[in-house]
């Protein structure tokens, strides 16, 4: 595996910007709400710019891990502060930067316990960034949990609809996942006999027997799969999304669920490739069930946020299906889908969040004819729905196309089922759009203010990202290929 060391610690800059933002917020008096919001916007903006820079500066002809930083941390245990990004993680960094910045801007009108809210968001996002860049198992677990535990308070304090139940369920589910991941990590470290937590060192072929790899991969698959919303461990996800406030839903569905899939990739597939090959049929099965199940359950929901929550289960199933194909196209599609779904869901939740803030209802039956009173807000909503359906020229289309093509080759039956489910997804998305946006205008919603240009900025950014990568998918595919082709060629 080729390592290119960084001349400037860009990856640590990402982390330190988050920590710096956190400290800046903590030392600002709680009543200075405006200043806190500006601090949040500036620091999250910096992380977005740095992540864009990393995306552009990553040398695709060179491939391998770049921007590598390494520092001995606890030599006695073989723990090192070891960061680096490859074609798999660079898109995730970009996604995190975008969703983070737009999420902060979306909460511009938020005014309840502002200081704590933004402090927890910064803590959460620093965990997410850390998870995507680290190459050391010790830090994987640290960042994983740092990104999870602020969720409890974020949902329980600022949420809506059954928030305490949703928060507790989500936290316990996700930590049950980490209860499988930690023994897996320790098993690998203790079993290798190398006294190291370094992922790249543990990737050495022949270090673990096939039986060990199968065992550990299963632990990682279930552990991270809970976070990735793999059926049947997804039940926390719609409840949690519905209960969470807008920015948290955006970050959670947009980025946090990707950590789960990314964990399966980085830990499970990288370290235990034979386990991956063994369990791939199961992954494909569960993913297909998730796709079909999410679509059908989404069809019968009466709450807009539940619809999005279940569509997330369905869309994350596509990621799982792509990973299970064990082919370049499948991996490319899966990673692209993670990116596209992240941006799409963020847009979805941010537009629904706006509508909820104004109408104070999420029930599909009560909404209607919003296109007349809020043309701009509903446009964002419709664009998000179209992306979710997979309309060409929008980012999701390419991702889903690649996954389905490769799934057809490997698992013809699952592939057919998944495409059939897509038609159902289209049906329920369009049904929601029809009920919410069109139809007779309800006089209760007449005269409600539309999205102002300032509040439109985050949504505009998300829409432009969707369109940009929908028109030029090669921007993303070229990047992912630098990692997926070498990765698959190394497999036994």
């Amino acid at each position, binding site marked *: 595996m080729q390592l290119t060391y960084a001349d400037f610690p860009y990856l640590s800059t990402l982390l330190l910007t988050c920590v710096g933002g956190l400290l800046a917020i903590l030392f600002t008096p709680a009543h200075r709400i405006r200043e806190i919001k500006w601090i949040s916007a500036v620091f999250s903006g910096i992380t977005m710019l740095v992540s864009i820079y990393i995306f552009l500066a990553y040398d695709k002809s060179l491939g391998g891990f770049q921007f590598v930083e390494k520092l001995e*941390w*606890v*030599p*006695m*245990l073989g723990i090192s502060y070891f960061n680096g990004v490859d074609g798999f993680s660079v898109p995730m960094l970009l996604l995190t930067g975008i969703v983070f910045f737009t999420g902060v801007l979306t909460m511009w009108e938020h005014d309840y316990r502002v200081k*704590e809210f933004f402090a927890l968001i910064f803590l959460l996002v620093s965990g997410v960034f850390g998870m995507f860049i680290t190459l050391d198992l*010790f830090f994987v*677990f*640290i960042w994983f*949990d*740092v990104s999870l*535990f602020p969720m*409890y*308070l974020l949902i*329980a*304090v600022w949420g809506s609809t059954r928030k*305490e139940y949703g928060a*507790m369920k989500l*936290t*316990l589910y996700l*930590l*049950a996942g980490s*209860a*499988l991941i*930690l*023994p897996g990590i*320790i*098993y690998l*470290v*203790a*079993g290798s006999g190398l006294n190291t937590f370094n992922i790249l060192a543990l990737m050495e072929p022949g270090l673990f027997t096939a039986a060990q790899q199968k065992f550990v991969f299963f632990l990682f698959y279930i552990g991270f799969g809970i976070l990735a919303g793999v059926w049947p461990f997804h039940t926390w996800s719609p409840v949690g999304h519905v209960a969470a406030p807008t920015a948290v839903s955006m970050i959670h569905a947009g980025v946090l669920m990707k950590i789960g899939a990314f964990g399966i990739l980085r830990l499970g597939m990288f370290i235990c490739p034979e386990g991956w090959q063994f369990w791939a049929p199961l992954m494909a099965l569960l993913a297909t069930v998730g796709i079909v199940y999410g679509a059908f359950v989404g069809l019968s929901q009466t709450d807009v946020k539940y619809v999005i929550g279940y569509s997330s289960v369905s869309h994350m199933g596509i990621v799982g299906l792509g990973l299970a194909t064990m082919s370049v196209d499948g991996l490319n599609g899966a990673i692209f889908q993670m990116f596209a779904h992240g941006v799409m869901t963020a847009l979805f939740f941010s537009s629904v969040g706006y509508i909820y803030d104004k109408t104070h209802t999420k029930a599909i039956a009560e909404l209607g004819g919003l296109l007349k009173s809020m043309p701009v807000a509903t446009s964002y909503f419709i664009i998000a729905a179209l992306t979710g359906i997979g309309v060409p020229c929008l980012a999701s289309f390419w991702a889903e196309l690649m996954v389905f093509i490769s799934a057809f080759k490997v698992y013809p039956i699952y592939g057919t089922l998944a495409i059939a489910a897509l038609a159902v997804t289209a049906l329920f998305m369009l049904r929601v759009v029809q009920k919410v946006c069109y139809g007779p205008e309800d006089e209760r919603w007449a005269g409600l203010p539309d999205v102002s240009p300032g509040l439109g900025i985050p949504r505009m950014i998300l829409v432009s990202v969707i369109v940009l990568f929908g028109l030029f998918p090669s921007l993303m595919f070229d990047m992912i290929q630098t990692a997926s082709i070498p990765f698959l060629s190394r497999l036994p």
Partner: protein
Amino acid sequence: MNFILFQPELFGLFMSGVFLCLSLARPNSKRDFFTALALSAVGIAVCLAGLRLEGGLFYGAYRVDLFSQVFKTLLFMGLFLVICICSELKGIAERLHSEFYLLLTVCTLAMMMLVSSVHLLTIYVALELSSYSLYILVFLRKREDYGIDAGIKYFLIGATASAVMLFGFALLYGATQAAYVGEMLQVLPGLMDRPLVVIGLFLTLSGFLFKLAVFPFHFWAPDVYEGAPNQVTAYIASASKVGAIAILIRMVSLTGGNSEFLVHALVALAIITMTVGNLAAIVQKDLKRLLAYSSVAQAGYILIGILSMSAAGYTGAIFYALALLLMKFTAFLVVVKVAYDGKNISVDQLAGLHRRSPLLAMALMLSLFGLAGIPPTIGFTGKLLLFTAAMKQGYFTLVLIAMINVVISLYYYLLVIKAAYLTAPVGEQPDLEITPPMKLLTGTLVTVMVVVGIYPTLFLDLAEKAARMLVL
């Protein structure tokens, strides 16, 4: 005889002497508090100065090495921390304040001797001295608020455990013809297949398991935690656990890892202890009782490191002793501050804490996350060390069960955090007055818990060297 080796204990003796004299003078709680604070701070410095000492005393019955000196420092640190929260001893009558400090010091001194003892007789004497001080400390609470049943229960179970332990000593002595731990170390590993030795060892260990509140000796914990003055509970939960961990490590390391039966028994005890502790904690309404059951569960985690019987396991246990000291103390600091009238508090009474004192709420949250083992806190790093050591010995199932326990425990910790952060208080609650020194202490504890959790190298090296003393 080289008195330099004995300097931390001599200082402890001097400090108890001071309070013995003060207890004869007119009661003055301010004077007692500041004297105790100053003396215990000096005590930490004395212990640190003696960290590198090595040697034997009293015809080899007393051993000074890095292992014992690290624990002595931890113990004095625990004493200092507990004294820090004694500025308002509302739970104890003012005329008894000097006695309170006297007993606290004597108890610490006894435990310092315990960690250095390598002869059955000194071990017994030191253990009893510390136990008797604690029995009285538990009784000190104002009678009108709480009855004396906690003290009686503690005393009866404690005395029984000592008797059982003494019987174990006798059996061990009969089997090995040795009373020096060092000599036993030579003989015991070869005799581990003899039932007499195994039973003797078990009965011996039960005395220490009682101190650590391991199943089936944990029944005293919730009642004593509830019935003792808050500061005393803080001491029992933090410093006294450190002493128990130390002596347990030393005794178990005697066997040289040669007894499968002992390991299996300890595995069973560890699993039952943490499961019982965590399940019982879920239904507790009183915060001190909840923390008592959480202590029981923590004892189970520590056993995992000890039963690994390797240098890595002992390192983990030593590290976890520090972690437990800090985490439990921080939790009790919040208890003491919120219960400003010296009474017990229920979990519900934490409602609105985040508004009354954001700092205390944050400290409580971090200490509870640490106890649950959530990174990036010191509790996670400690658990990682313990679990890694167990995994290296091949105890995968044990680690998995421990992790499941972690998830169970998270449920009740989250309920406490929910009370502190979410639940709206009934009626108006005044802001809590926290003095600047107390703010500094809380801030320092929070920082140390996080920093040592992320960057454990310094203390880890020390713990590792100390553990090497035991495995030769």
